[in-house]
């Protein structure tokens, strides 16, 4: 087991973030990870999302996975779910676009309309 101290520090920071999430402020980001999504680069998108969230110290945001959304030609597809707001589905996401989505939508609350596929009304 490498760097138990590092893991302990992560645990403490994450416990704080979880309290925020329990209070209903938590944002969930879903990455479609079907065969089509994987072939289109969903794995890199997911890692870019994780990396950018940690860089921006937003460890209260959870990144989860779903299967194919049925729009294979639009993969990789990422859905951002902000409590109390409409779910926003982004298509054709690349590593860089994933970083833009974190910065603009999750951090600043501005939907990146250039990449939007659909907005599901809350």
């Amino acid at each position: 087991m490498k760097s138990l101290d590092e893991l302990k520090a992560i645990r403490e920071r994450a416990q704080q973030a979880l309290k925020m999430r329990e209070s209903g402020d938590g944002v969930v980001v879903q990455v479609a990870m079907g065969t089509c999504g994987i072939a289109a680069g969903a794995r890199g998108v997911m890692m870019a999302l994780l990396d950018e969230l940690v860089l921006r110290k937003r460890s209260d945001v959870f990144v989860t996975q779903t299967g194919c959304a049925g729009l294979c030609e639009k993969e990789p597809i990422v859905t951002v779910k902000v409590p109390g707001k409409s779910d926003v589905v982004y298509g054709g996401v690349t590593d860089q676009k994933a970083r833009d989505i974190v910065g603009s939508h999750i951090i600043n609350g501005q939907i990146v309309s250039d990449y939007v596929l659909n907005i599901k009304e809350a």
Partner: protein
Amino acid sequence: MKELAEHLLDILQNCLFAGASRVTINLVEDVATDQLTMEIKDNGCGMDEQLLAKVLDPFVTTRNKKTGLGLPLLAQTAQLCNGSLVLASKVGEGTEVTLKIQQSHWDCPPLGNVIDTITSCLNEQTHLVFMHKCLDSTGSVVGVVSLDTDDIKAHLEGIPMNHPEVLLFVRRMLEQEYEEMEGRER
């Protein structure tokens, strides 16, 4: 798929969908036989004989909207590269997928980014055990990278395994182990 690691991710997604609580991944690169062996075993819902017989046919899937192309594509790659893809499954017991492939074959995709594949499949419900061994021309083990998610979960005290910082921690840990393995190989 550009990498074997992407095929691995695709199979792991199947394991997770099958409700597996334990997934074991064994990768063995054998220089002597020029063969890469990839074994993925889960304890998910398994498949009956009827489904198992046709699961390598394109567009066969048990899920809505899925393409049903993951395993057929991998079978095609194995066939092209003097290899094989063997599936064994029992309903209620789980499934085992074994890929053998000639690594130096012209059509063999690179193994690719195994670290990101493993990292992106970690979750709270599944105990994942991963081992990657490299054997030299005499059959001796020259490098091993391993991960057991229970070792990490024991220190998390309720923090989910798929927390962004935990995932990146696991990624760094695997990167470090791969660097050490490459150092030993040299």
